[in-house]
């Protein structure tokens, strides 16, 4: 698989480390009433879809940026690559 890095261009997936579902960006609020339940779901439960999947890849052997890659889990086709920083800010995180 080739990941089209937004800053560096096309890079071999072997340069990256895979973390998992990009929903991991949305860390629950530890102050919330049901924080234990929310953290259990955040830490352990996954949608694991067959089809389009947004996921976090870390460019360990490159510029060490985190990327949000949209990839089809049935075909391995990559349809979108964004910097995770931009995506996290868009979702309301401060960094």
């Amino acid at each position, binding site marked *: 698989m080739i990941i089209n890095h937004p800053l560096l261009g096309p890079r071999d997936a072997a340069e990256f480390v895979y973390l998992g579902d990009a929903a991991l960006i949305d860390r629950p609020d530890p102050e919330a009433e049901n924080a234990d339940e929310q953290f259990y779901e955040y830490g352990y439960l996954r949608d694991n879809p*067959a089809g389009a999947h947004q996921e976090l890849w870390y460019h360990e052997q490159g510029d060490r940026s985190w990327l949000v890659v949209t990839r089809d889990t049935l075909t391995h086709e990559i349809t979108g690559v964004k910097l995770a920083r931009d995506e996290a800010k868009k979702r309301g995180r401060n960094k």
Partner: protein
Amino acid sequence: MRYSAFEILKQGLSGNKGWKPVWREPEPKAEYDVIIVGGGGHGLSTAYYLSKVYGMRNIAVLEKGWLGSGNIGRNTTIIRSNYMMPGNQPFYEFSLKLWEGLEQDFNYNAMVSQRSILNLFHSDPQRDAFVRRANAMILSGADAELADEAQLRRELPFLDFDNARFPIKGGLYQRRGGTVRHDAVAWGYARGADSHGVDIIQNCEVTGFDIENGVCTGVQSSKGRIRAKKVAVCVAGSSSRVMSLAGMRLPIESHVLQAFVTEGLKPTLPGVITFGAGHFYVSQSDKGGLVFGGDIDGYNTYAQRGNLPVVEDVAEGGMAIMPMIGRTRLLRSWGGVMDMSMDGSPFIDKTHIEGLYFNGGWCYGGFKATPASGYCYAHLLANDTPHPVATEMRLDRFKRGHIIDEKGQGNQPNLH
């Protein structure tokens, strides 16, 4: 028909005209006591033990494709019970004991071959860890035997003992480990279940569950609605997809594991050998091909094929312990989709929906577990209590903090 040497002789003398299909191809009835979703190794063994040991008769196995079209035919056929954790090791030892009597039990030649498994170690700390593992194995009633370098040099002279980076210092033998002809396991269980009256229905995809007021009353399928008192899902590799039909999210990611086979060679490897400093395991099939594999690819996927970086990694692992295979040509490679769970261990449990049961999360250790998985799942379905060796394999263990993490990697499925 009971298979025997006499039957072969009789059929041989009468032109082999008396062999019959080994299972029926029935249409589904309107209602069953138990519907098992998934006609792979685990589903068929569940049906077999449910009908044979637990005496239930009105059972159907629904399979989306053909029997054994999933991982039962895609693994590297290794059986062993060299785990360590208390929640795991007694279960896998129970499984190995079932393997030992399986062919007589279901009267089918599954080519169970206890040709031994050897886990190599490459350093003193690793030796200590293997001694600890061996003790845990012996405590569960399994066999374990430590071999030093001198013994291995005599028995397996082709190993690269003096490798500069990963010298071989010895290994942990389990002599009762070995290999089994995997397709025959599915066929043997299917034949056995069918002979006890189980309806095995192929090309029947489950498209939904009928759930009313928190009770599962049956399934929707490509052959219409089928009612059931209990529905037992057993579809490792597709668990998240199927359980999402019941509105459940699971502690599972789907990953692909690749496997490889070379051209046929003269007898070379006496048993299964694994590399201790990377991930590589190899055995030689009865046809002569070296059958081997390594790590999963490491990203979510439902495609039954992987990518080249892992092919390279596996080949490097092989070359690190037995450079003699460098000139061997690869015949085939393939991939199977694994349920990778959050702690690397499986589930055999009820769900929060009454009448709906779940078996999955086998990571890449499902094949060796086939007999015990079916036996314990059947026990759960018949009695509504877990089998004594499967009490820890619960769906809520992460919430309770009682994980079974053999490798100590935490909730990162691609590292297990």
